[in-house]
């Protein structure tokens, strides 16, 4: 049997794709707003700011709209749960050798999902306070700027890590693009998940 295994439904892939586009737009515009030479080179602060703000405001939407899909909810449930094996996987230096069996998502993916979701919500809230200057007193806006800056830096590193892991694994990228993966790859990388299909 060499048929592929279904990994991500169309709805899940759509959530991933739109979140990715919005996130990269946020990061690109943030770089212009924040980095001094880029800010002066590009200028047009109001336009860049509008693109950044509306991409940011839209960023949680696909994550929420996805809840209409049962497959997306099921993936969220798996991402949410950390088993004892997950903690061992995170601590292990040889985590990729397959001795610790991994389900549909490994513990790193779970961690990335939780950190990204939390950070997106924090960036959403602080960004709202910074943009609509009438909502909160100045001290809160200063606090929001402080939190927004550090969370943005952290999210930047998170996204960078996420993309570099993806770049190292063509099958994983294929799975997110087309929705299915080879059985061999699944057995090697997500053993417990692959076995769900043989029962």
């Amino acid at each position: 049997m060499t048929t592929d295994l279904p990994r991500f439904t169309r709805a899940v892939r759509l959530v991933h794709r739109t979140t990715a586009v919005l996130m990269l737009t946020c990061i690109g515009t943030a770089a212009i707003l924040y980095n001094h030479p880029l800010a002066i080179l590009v200028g047009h602060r109001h336009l860049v700011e509008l693109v950044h703000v509306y991409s940011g405001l839209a960023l949680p939407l696909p994550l929420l709209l996805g809840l209409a899909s049962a497959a997306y909810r099921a993936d969220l449930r798996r991402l949410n749960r950390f088993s004892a094996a997950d903690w061992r996987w995170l601590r292990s230096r040889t985590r990729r050798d397959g001795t610790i069996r991994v389900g549909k998502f490994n513990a790193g993916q779970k961690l990335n999902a939780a950190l990204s979701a939390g950070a997106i919500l924090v960036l959403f809230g602080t960004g709202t306070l910074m943009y609509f200057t009438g909502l909160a007193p100045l001290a809160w806006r200063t606090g929001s700027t402080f939190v927004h800056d550090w969370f943005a830096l952290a999210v930047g590193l998170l996204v960078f890590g996420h993309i570099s892991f993806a770049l190292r694994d063509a099958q994983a990228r294929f799975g997110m693009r087309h929705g299915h993966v080879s059985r061999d790859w699944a057995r090697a990388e997500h053993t417990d998940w692959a076995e769900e299909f043989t029962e």
Partner: protein
Amino acid sequence: MTDDGAPVGRRIVLGLLAVGATGVLTGHRVQNALARALAPLENRDPTGLLSLLPLGAAFRYYSVTGSVPRRGRDDYRLTVSGLVARTTEYTIADLEALPRTDLVRDFQCVTGWRVPEVPWSGVALSVLLDRANPMPTATAVRFRSFDGTYTESLTMEQARRADVIVALRMLDAPVTHDHGGPVRMYAAPMYGYKSTKWLEAIEVTDRAEPGYWERRGYDIDGYIEQS
């Protein structure tokens, strides 16, 4: 479903929300302490590396147009015109010859960031207004930028404050191009958007017109709120 265990993902999300909320409420204190400690370093850091970290003390550079022409000592002119008895044009040397005002004051952006204790130096706007001799009907002052787009206004009363200056120097050096040089406004008691960069013209008028950001939602009254 073989994946079970504790709902750690949810705890992480809620934990980050708690950290974020705490940061919003207390961050200004941390930010001010950091900014105060690091501003002298950060604003003069020749490598620019410190500014890559959001330490809070550094200027952020706002420009509302694509590119701003560079003007220097040779081609810079500032005109004071409008409802005045005497329209005047100044070179940088002319401005330098006038009585000087030195201030050490914070630069506060309306969105929250602040650079504490920036040294500013220039000519009080009231000096230029007195020399131009406004007519009795004059009630406001309008600023235009040689970026070709930016405008701002102050009421005559605000414009005559001793801490509203036409700045020639900031951070102990001539105002750089990126900071709005060679000549920019600095209205110390107000948010940064009231301090026009790349200042080209000062027009005395009979009403305070909404400026660039004010047409896009900011208050015409730009006084920094007490916090």
